[in-house]
């Protein structure tokens, strides 16, 4: 019927697959995700904050989305036989430390070259700033450094009411023990304040062997205090609402869908060329 770029209910999503210039690596990662059963994949590019890169002038220095991934012929035939569709989206994660970063975020939101916009705040101030912006994901994952700030439960509740989700990455947990302890600590804090309904888990995988199946990822969210019946939501339901939120941000305030309804007699409709000249629809050039 309608060919919207939205996934169905019950489709597993992985919303953070870092993609660089290395196209072979990203292709292997995407093929591993497809073989495990995922249906929505988002390839992400990073944008560091101005304290590291220095002040930059002009919008031309903003990162561009990577070119689309070309899969092998075997995988395409397999998808055709199973009648499965795979959505590949683009995403950007922006680190926020100064007020200049907030200006960058607003300009990127207006630009709309990326499908999903995510933010990684490093201060209490920046967290208050990004509370009002129409952002899709708040990334609570400073993997290499100590967690710089602790969000308060009141603020988390206000953010959760707007359907913005907190995201954690699970492949740094597999690599290192200290990072595992920190992410589980932060996850417990966030899940406490939102009754376990606002947690999103995604992979920050650098290598294809760091990716796990969808049910395993759902079971990992049980370590963060989520109940077992709601554990799979961190991959299914919450991720789908993020994709829908990103889609509605790009479209206009209201949308109209035009669709041909079948004629009562069952006859075929005549096209514009078959009609006589007086009745043809004339479009201005």
């Amino acid at each position, binding site marked *: 019927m309608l060919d919207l770029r939205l996934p169905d209910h019950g489709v597993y999503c992985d919303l953070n697959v870092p993609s660089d210039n290395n196209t072979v690596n990203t292709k292997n990662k995407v093929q591993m995700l497809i073989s495990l059963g995922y249906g929505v994949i988002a390839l992400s590019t990073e944008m560091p904050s101005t304290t590291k890169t220095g002040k930059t002038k002009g919008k031309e220095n903003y990162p561009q989305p990577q070119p689309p991934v070309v899969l092998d012929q075997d995988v395409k035939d397999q998808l055709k036989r199973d009648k499965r569709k795979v959505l590949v989206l683009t995403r950007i994660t922006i680190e926020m430390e100064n007020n200049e970063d907030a200006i960058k975020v607003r300009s990127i939101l207006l630009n709309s070259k990326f499908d999903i916009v995510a933010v990684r705040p490093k201060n209490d101030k920046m967290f208050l700033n990004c509370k009002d912006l129409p952002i899709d994901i708040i990334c609570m994952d400073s993997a290499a450094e100590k967690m710089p700030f602790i969000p308060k439960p009141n603020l988390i509740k206000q953010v959760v009411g707007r359907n913005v989700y907190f995201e954690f990455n699970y492949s740094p947990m597999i690599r290192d023990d200290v990072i595992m302890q920190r992410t589980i600590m932060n996850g417990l804090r966030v899940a406490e304040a939102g009754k376990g309904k606002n947690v999103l888990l995604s992979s920050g995988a650098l290598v*294809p062997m760091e990716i796990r*199946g969808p049910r*395993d990822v759902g079971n990992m969210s049980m*370590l963060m205090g989520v109940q077992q019946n709601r554990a799979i939501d961190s991959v299914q339901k919450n991720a789908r609402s993020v994709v829908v939120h990103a889609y509605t941000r790009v479209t206009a305030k209201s949308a109209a869908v035009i669709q041909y309804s079948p004629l009562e007699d069952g006859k075929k409709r005549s096209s514009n060329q078959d009609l006589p000249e007086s009745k043809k629809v004339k479009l201005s050039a």
Partner: protein
Amino acid sequence: MVRLKHRYVLAEVKFADPKKFYHVNPHRVIDEITGIVTKVHGISGLAGVKIGLHVKYLNEYSKLVLIRVRSQYHQKLLSALPFIKTMPVKMPGVKARSAPEGVACFLNTICVTSTIKDAQKRIRTYGKRTMDRLLSECKTEEERTKVCKVFAEHSQPEEMEVDEEELEDEKEEEENGK
């Protein structure tokens, strides 16, 4: 009379190269699981998981593993399984008495059931799906007959050791279903 309840976890072992063959030993699988559960849940978590821990079925060709756990502790096992990184595995063509090497792999859980019969159903449907996929890739009839032969020889999910408690479990489940 207190009835003991179990949970059966069906998982697939995925290596980096899906076409190579490795010899997987059930004792090595249990060693790996105990190591991971101590790392994630500590010594007290390991004690609960280790009571009823047993590998019921392992197929080296289809790489399916069926693990049994007591039902009170199955959440601890499930939340610790994704952290497995390597598995000590014997390479084919190596002498019998040499130590096994660690190969990069991970476990992908397929389902969690309460009886062995449900797990056997899932194994059969999984086997059919892989057989259909391999047959559709074959181009000549010789390859197709070869594939059917190999599957007939190496897939026997009914040869599992079933205890008396598990037989009672299945009888009670059937009565409750009716």
